[in-house]
């Protein structure tokens, strides 16, 4: 068993001829998790997509709890315990809220569990997911991923473009999840304060390279802001 839930070692990756990540090394410890911070276009989402398997690496390796998953397709990584909430509140718009959840499992107890976490969804089960608000879709997206029973939960900007009162709810859920102990969270987030509060470690990514990293918490705020200002 590895001490790290996710290790990204010397990874170079990109789209077509353009390289976005250059020899990136990231190690996410089990338990508390980590936040990746950086400006727009730094390569944060690309790094997550590499971890999930949506973008192949050009060189380097990706290890999940010590197992090499570099060549594994995304659906297999999910079965190994990797859960991914993509950016943009994605859902299956023509399916109802319930069908979105049932895509992962039809176990009533498991669905009831995630509905306890996101009670707003319980009243919207028969509504077409494409007609939900952005905040509701994001809650659905997290609930659906939790149904895959992840050991590592990867969230890409979960509060982006969502109204403030829903942001507070989502933030609280993520903090609760990181405190659960059996789940490691990897978070990409623009709100530095929230990211540092929710995870134990942080990395700063700039122009496709890791430029800073360390232990999170409120005390790290100045260092992170200084690193991002460079």
């Amino acid at each position, binding site marked *: 068993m590895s001490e790290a839930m996710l290790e990204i070692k010397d990874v170079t990756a990109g789209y077509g001829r353009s390289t976005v990540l250059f020899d990136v090394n990231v190690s996410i410890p089990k338990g508390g998790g980590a936040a990746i911070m950086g400006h727009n276009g730094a390569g944060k989402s690309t790094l997550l997509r590499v971890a*999930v398997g*949506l973008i192949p690496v050009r060189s380097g390796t990706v290890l999940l709890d010590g197992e090499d998953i570099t060549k594994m*397709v*995304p*659906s297999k990584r*999910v*079965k190994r315990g990797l859960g*991914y909430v*993509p950016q*943009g*509140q*994605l*859902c*299956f*718009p*023509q*399916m109802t809220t319930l*069908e979105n959840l*049932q*895509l*992962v499992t*039809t176990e009533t107890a498991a669905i009831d569990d995630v509905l306890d976490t996101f009670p707003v969804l319980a009243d919207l089960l028969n509504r*077409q*997911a*494409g*007609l*939900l*608000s*952005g905040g509701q*879709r994001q809650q659905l997206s997290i609930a*659906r*991923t939790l149904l*895959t029973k992840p050991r590592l939960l990867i969230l890409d900007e979960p509060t982006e473009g969502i109204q403030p009162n829903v942001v507070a709810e989502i933030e609280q859920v993520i903090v609760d999840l990181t405190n659960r102990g059996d789940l490691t969270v990897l978070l990409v987030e623009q709100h530095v304060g929230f990211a540092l509060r929710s995870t134990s470690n942080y990395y700063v990514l700039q122009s496709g390279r890791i430029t800073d990293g360390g232990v999170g918490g409120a005390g790290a705020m100045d260092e992170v802001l200084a690193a991002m200002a460079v």
Partner: protein
Amino acid sequence: MDALTTPLLTGSATGAILLMAALGLTLTFGQMGVINMAHGEFLMAGAYATYLTQQVISGSGLSVLVAIPVAFLVTGLLGLLLEMSTIRWMYRRPLDTLLVTVGVSLVLQQLARDLFGAQGDPVTPPSWMRGSIEVAGYAWPHRQLFTIVLALAAVALLHAGLKRTSFGRRVRATVQNRELAETLGVTTRAVDRSTFFIGSGLAGVGGVAISLISGTNPTLGTTYIIPAFLVVVAGGVGQVKGTVIAAFAIGIATAFLTDWTSGSMAQVISFIAVVLFLQIRPQGLFTVRTRALA
């Protein structure tokens, strides 16, 4: 009254055949971005499967009913073979699939000529399908009625399968957002193969109906493939409800136009009407309703 009833009823039967051809196309085009021009030859394979079944169970009134699952299985496996050997390398490259599958369709036509001859073979409808029923003065052949029942049963089964089963949810998820489905544990490759099997199999069932109306012929697929694609785009790609409405609308409209003008003129007017319709509504009859892009 005949002037209305005859084209309405014969057009409905044509619409039913177009529907069975278009259902598979709309699934594979919507899910995988594949333009399968060999889909018409799956209709032809279904017709020959009916002919062969009748040779084995000759004289039996049940041969057509037995031919339905046989045709589904044979053309489904043919589709699976095509997907695994060729099309899997060309997902989301519609023009490449179009060119390659035109070649495959020519190969399949030649294969049918070599195996069965160029003339085609008759399929004898069983006795219970030979009569007709009187509808507003028109003697509506049982065969046409059977075609409509068959198509509606295929739609109902497909609809129930897509709506009520776990496999159906995986298909719909893959059609709507393949990448997202994959990151939720859906093995989209397996879903693609199964969808191709079912879509091709449905064309085979359409071939059963065609064989009862016009017998078998190595080139019968070419008659239906373009109208079937018109049905797919007019109904909205990947939309079963839209496909049903578009298939019957195009079938019936073409029958009326044939009555008023000629067969070839009716085809021309239908094409122009669909092109004009797509200028006004490029997404087809039905599309996804969302509050935002998702």
